[in-house]
């Protein structure tokens, strides 16, 4: 294709340099401060899974209080200190810490690092036929900044007063007058923001610059497209939160009044400070990030689901172009819908109309994506292995989550539903049985590439079945509660007469959550067991077409023995007159 591509970077060179110093790096350089995108991907993956488990643990604890407010937590209640759960009874302080940290950890330390940091890092360079990310050192820094950010967040559990407790949204003035935990939260966020900034630059440059010869943009696997758009969201949406975090830190530490209006009276004390600030400013800056952020949670998941569906139906994705266009359009629109979280802040009519119109518009590409994915099943020969089960289950779950976004997006119905459990139900359907299922699917799917072994199908199916049942058990009741007006973030919902009739649903939801926790045991066991004792498999166990499956397993430093050349689109399955039912992108023969 170009002289440049051959000059000194040809296949032979690739092979040599890999052979000469690929293997003899000291342990700490190979596995700790590694610059290899695959190791970094796995570091991200393991850390994020642990955070996910931790964040889930926090909410399982909270669910006790939701179900049986004011009663001592059985078994483990005694293990906690007196300023969190004296006598096993959870204090409101602790409850709100759990809530804020659950949201923060799940979003910023769990799902995004897993979807982008782990899957993006591991799979994208392989799928585009690159030897690594464009900036390996930045990649390493990105992970370590994430790690430090996570440590700061965790550290705040151990300081007097505990963690942040103003919700993951950290609305001022509450967050400004809150205790030290909030400062930790802000500093932790600063690390995470910079980590994702480095990561997103890296992804954009890698995908634009390092595609293998022949890997044109319309031959990119759908997953890569999803990551590409995601990287832009991270790049351009996070900085405003960085700005907002700086302002909030100033408010807390330098006693400025960015978010503090004049004349505040807390506990009958006039708050010192100049005043003149505006709490709504924070909301704008926060949601300018946080709405794109929720699409960061879903786009990679859609990408994973697309890959797995194509592979396991043994046919190409339906409407590849429409899918790609929709993803780009969603990414673009996601920057201009943010204030649908703020309909009831006294926003003007024109603004409110603008944001509900954009919100309705952004639902259309999601409908197109969901339609194209389900039509991709049509005419296939569907192989129901564990990754496929999770991927297929993603579709209706995302459908429920997405559809319930509509009544929230119309400001009139949002008057009743805002800040009720309906909202909690809405977004958990998209992120929990939606994104988490897609991520599970991805783990089962790419595990053989990462380790050379397959995870157990039997345990996988057990994991799937119970996860599906209990996920719905946790979140379906929330819609009913939300309709009845039950508000979110309630330490003791039974305080309100209107919440009492649906209280049995809270119990149901909690029991489901704990069972969901139990349902993860086969997964965790399967995961670690299979690393060492899983069934050994060859390079391409699923008979897939994308490039990562043509690399050796596990891929060595530098990935491909010979720099791949790409000849065709990503999903050539069941091509007539071809000898196999899959036709890898880099396979040379002409028919």
């Amino acid at each position, binding site marked *: 294709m170009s002289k440049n591509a051959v000059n000194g970077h040809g296949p032979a060179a690739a092979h040599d*340099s890999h052979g000469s110093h690929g293997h003899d790096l000291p342990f700490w350089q190979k596995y700790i401060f590694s610059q290899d995108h695959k190791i970094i991907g796995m570091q991200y993956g393991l850390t994020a899974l642990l955070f996910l488990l931790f964040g889930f643990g926090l909410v399982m604890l909270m669910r006790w209080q939701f179900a049986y407010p004011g009663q001592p937590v059985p078994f483990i209640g005694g293990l906690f200190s007196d300023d969190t759960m004296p006598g096993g009874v959870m204090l409101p302080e602790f409850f709100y810490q759990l809530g804020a940290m659950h949201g923060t950890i799940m979003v910023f330390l769990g799902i995004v690092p897993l979807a982008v940091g782990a899957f993006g890092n591991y799979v994208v360079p392989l799928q585009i036929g690159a030897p690594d990310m464009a900036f390996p050192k930045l990649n390493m820094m990105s992970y370590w900044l994430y790690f430090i950010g996570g440590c700061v967040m965790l550290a705040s559990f151990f300081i007097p007063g505990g963690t942040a407790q103003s919700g993951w949204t950290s609305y001022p003035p509450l967050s400004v007058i809150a205790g030290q935990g909030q400062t930790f939260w802000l500093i932790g966020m600063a690390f995470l923001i910079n980590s994702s900034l480095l990561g997103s*630059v890296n992804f954009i440059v890698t995908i*634009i610059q390092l595609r293998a010869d022949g890997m044109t943009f319309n031959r990119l696997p759908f997953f890569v497209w999803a990551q590409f758009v995601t990287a832009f969201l991270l790049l*351009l949406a996070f*900085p405003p939160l960085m*700005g*907002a975090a700086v302002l909030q830190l100033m408010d807390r530490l330098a006693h400025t009044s960015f978010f503090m209006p004049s004349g505040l009276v807390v506990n009958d004390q006039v708050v010192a400070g100049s005043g003149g600030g*505006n709490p709504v400013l924070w909301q*704008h800056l926060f949601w300018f990030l946080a709405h794109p952020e929720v699409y960061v949670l879903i786009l990679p998941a859609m990408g994973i689901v697309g890959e797995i569906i194509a592979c396991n139906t043994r046919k190409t994705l339906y409407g590849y172009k429409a899918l790609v266009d929709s993803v780009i359009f969603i990414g673009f629109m996601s920057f201009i819908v943010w204030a649908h979280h703020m309909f009831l802040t006294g926003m003007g009519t024109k603004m409110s109309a603008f944001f509900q119109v954009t919100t309705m518009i952004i639902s259309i590409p999601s409908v197109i994506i969901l339609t194209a994915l389900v039509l991709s099943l049509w005419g296939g020969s569907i192989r129901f292995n564990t990754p496929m089960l999770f991927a297929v289950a993603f579709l209706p779950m995302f459908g429920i989550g997405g559809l319930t976004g509509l009544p929230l997006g119309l400001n009139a119905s949002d008057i009743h539903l805002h800040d009720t459990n309906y909202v909690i139900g809405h977004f958990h359907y998209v992120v929990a049985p939606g994104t988490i299922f897609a991520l599970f699917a991805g783990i089962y799917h790419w595990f053989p590439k990462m380790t050379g072994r397959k995870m157990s199908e039997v345990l996988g199916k057990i994991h799937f079945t119970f996860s599906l049942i209990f996920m719905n058990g946790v979140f379906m009741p929330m819609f009913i509660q939300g309709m009845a007006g039950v508000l979110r973030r309630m330490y003791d919902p039974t305080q309100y007469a209107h919440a009492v009739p649906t209280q049995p649903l809270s119990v149901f939801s909690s029991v489901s959550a704990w069972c969901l926790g139990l349902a993860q045991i086969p997964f965790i066991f399967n995961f670690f067991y299979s690393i060492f004792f899983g069934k050994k498999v060859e390079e391409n166990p699923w008979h897939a077409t994308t490039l990562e499956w043509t690399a050796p397993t596990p891929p060595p430093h530098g990935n491909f023995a010979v720099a791949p050349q790409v000849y065709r689109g990503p999903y050539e399955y069941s091509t007539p007159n071809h000898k196999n039912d899959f036709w890898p992108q880099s396979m040379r023969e002409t028919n």
Partner: protein
Amino acid sequence: MESLIKHISKPHPVTGVTNAKLGTWCFLASEIMLFGALFSSYVLLRVGAGTAWPRGSDILNVPLATLNTLVLITSSVTMVMACASLALKNLGKYRLYMGATILLAFVFLVVKSFEYGHKFEHHHFPSTSTFYAIYFTLTGLHGLHVIGGIVVNTYLLFPGSALWKKDPDQFMGRVEAAGLYWHFVDLVWIFLFPVLYLL
């Protein structure tokens, strides 16, 4: 291993840019959004304050800030001259211009610290009013960017320049990237100056 990654020193044949250049611009795009958020906060607070908002020229030191503007602009020029010297394969001149750039950056910071010191003496702190709050925050954040630029440029002046012998193209790419960043810091100041000091 690094040599495996393409387009480090030579531009990509289709996009026409190197990785470093594209990466730097992406980073600057994110910086635009960062300062965008802060300028947005400025606008919102100012609109909210109405006539209570002071005019910067009445309470800030315009001559000092003008001096600083000139210093920063000059440092931008020395930065492009440093790049041009490298393109002319003149490492000595590059050193000279880069050194000047760093020096000017220090001058900027010194002037800035005088300005801050003066304010503190008169008991004007970030907590004094929202005007001072945004003034200190914006100039402070900008100052941090200047310090970042000094670190990068110093690296490229001394240890980093060893790359010049090994791979002049890559080294030039790095200097150019540092230059882009430095001009961006200048560019932010070009807006900060009238917005805070003159209006």
